[in-house]
């Protein structure tokens, strides 16, 4: 079977418009989550991680775009443009395009939005990105709730191993919208303060927006220094509830076990876990149970939601990219917002930037519909 690698990558977020800047800001303890007062998004002030519109507009203008693009399209194009340029990959019929998003251009359903509501079709979003760059292949849009970003990496690996493509560009993105805020608020899932994953005082999520992109490659040449190999991945459903996680963490447990099997690694091989950690009571508790069932309680772990909020369909991809840079810098980054363990099982939450020799990391995500995904990555250059 082919090996597959994550290579060139980019993050467009409230903490910067390229991966090294974003990672540096995390190292310095900065968070993109701020108090937002915008009644077009939500009736009351709320905490979220929102990209500055002026900065986004200016950065996008430099690409000299022809035509009108939505906020999300601008974010995605800006992100993908950087890695297409950096990699120098020609967009032949051997190169795939995967978009991971939960809601795409959902803001266009609002009649106050100047763009037509037809733009909310995710396939249309796929074609806009394809046509902008001139991809030769049909875009693949993956919309699988909050595991989409990490499942997109699995999907790219699977299409490459099946011979469908040699290389795949993945771009993930979701925006902060009144649609999403009102929905999560109706679930009483939103925190009135910056979120605190795994903490005793946690009280729910913050929403965030980001576009992240990565090139998935089957060749080991032309890799940037932070590249990682995808050793194993799996996705398992809880078969339990459509909006609540399993009490036993069944799907996550099975996903990690299956990813370990394919990667041919065990719990003792894992140097770092980039977990989901939304900061809801039930999600974080479920993860603690699943990780303890696997004997992963002592492995250093963080949630990055305290820096970016929950960026939905992009979160798994964003957090995997941070993980790549964490390995490259041999540095564990703290789980922002955490002060005191607030789950029933032990976890080794990272509380300060820590230098450590890192070679393998585990990324996990869970979402509505009972979906869970896990993937194991290994540093290419040590």
């Amino acid at each position, binding site marked *: 079977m082919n090996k597959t690698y994550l290579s060139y990558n980019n993050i467009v977020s409230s903490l910067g418009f390229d991966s090294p800047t974003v990672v540096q800001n995390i190292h310095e303890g900065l968070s993109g989550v701020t108090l937002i007062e915008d009644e077009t998004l939500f009736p009351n002030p709320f905490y979220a991680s929102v990209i500055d519109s002026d900065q986004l507009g200016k950065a996008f203008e430099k690409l000299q775009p022809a035509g009108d693009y939505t906020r999300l399209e601008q974010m995605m194009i800006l992100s993908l443009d950087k890695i297409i340029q950096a990699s120098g990959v020609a967009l032949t019929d051997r190169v795939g395009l995967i978009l991971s998003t939960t809601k795409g251009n959902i803001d266009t359903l609002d009649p106050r939005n100047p763009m037509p509501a037809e733009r909310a079709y995710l396939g249309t979003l796929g074609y806009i990105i394809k046509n902008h760059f001139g991809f030769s292949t*049909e875009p693949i849009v993956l919309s699988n709730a909050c595991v989409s970003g990490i499942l997109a990496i699995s999907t790219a690996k699977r299409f490459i191993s099946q011979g469908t493509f040699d290389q795949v560009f993945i771009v993930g993105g979701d925006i902060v919208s009144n649609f999403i805020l009102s929905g999560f608020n109706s679930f009483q899932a939103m925190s009135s303060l910056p979120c605190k994953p795994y903490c005793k005082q946690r009280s729910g999520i913050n929403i965030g927006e980001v576009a992240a992109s990565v090139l998935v490659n089957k060749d080991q040449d032309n890799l940037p220094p932070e590249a990682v190999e995808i050793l194993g991945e799996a996705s398992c459903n809880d078969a339990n509830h459509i909006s609540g996680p399993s009490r036993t963490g069944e799907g996550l447990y099975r996903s990690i076990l299956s990813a370990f099997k394919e990667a041919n690694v065990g719990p003792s091989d894992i140097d770092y876990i980039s977990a989901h950690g939304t900061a809801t009571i039930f999600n974080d508790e479920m993860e603690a149970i699943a990780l303890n069932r696997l004997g992963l309680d002592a492995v250093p772990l963080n949630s990055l939601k305290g820096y970016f909020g929950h960026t939905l369909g992009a979160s798994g991809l964003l957090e995997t990219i941070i993980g790549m840079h964490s390995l490259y810098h041999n540095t564990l980054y703290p789980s922002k917002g955490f002060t005191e363990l607030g789950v029933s099982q032990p976890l080794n939450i990272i509380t300060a930037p820590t230098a450590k020799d890192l070679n393998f990391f585990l990324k996990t995500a869970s979402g*509505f519909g009972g979906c869970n995904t896990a993937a194991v990555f290994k540093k290419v250059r040590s």
Partner: protein
Amino acid sequence: MKAQHLKIKEYCKISNNRVLLNDQLLYEDQGSDFTTFIKLAYKKMNTNYPKFFKMDDLSKLGFLASDILLKPMTQDSEISKNIALVFSNSASSLQTDRKHQESIMDQENYFPSPAVFVYTLPNICLGEISIKHRLYSENSFFIFNHFNAKYLHDYASSLIESEKADEVLCGWINCDVEDYEAFLYLVSKEGSIEHNKEEIIKLYTTK
């Protein structure tokens, strides 16, 4: 295990107010709208799963088509089957998205509901099917402008060949303003139809 050894064991279609299993017509009701039709089809198929009535249209459609194929395989089995679910469509969950959007348009009449919002993700349908049939398996939901047999074929083959799944329930379930359509097929190591792009297109386009 090579791709050419995989087969299509069975397939189910729900469209134009007809329910078909393989080439056999199970139910037809030309006079009804979707809401009535899918309820009558549910009864005719002896589905007997009260949670069905709280689902949105996309989940109802996908759930019923899946149930017709999976019930004989899972109802008497103590052990959960490793059947992956790989669905696709063009409208994602837009019908329910529009409903949620309407509920938040007017500040004076603001009533977002968690029972609606949860269905604003297409993969919720996969969760409903997984719960009913106790499938702790791979779930993926793709959005394509049109039915894409090549991608579905390659992805399902990869899941079985990498031993991530024993069988894959694959296909297209779509609900939009004008129309609805379900076409699901079971990829397996057994069956009489070859699992290749041409056969998948043939089954999909034969009315």
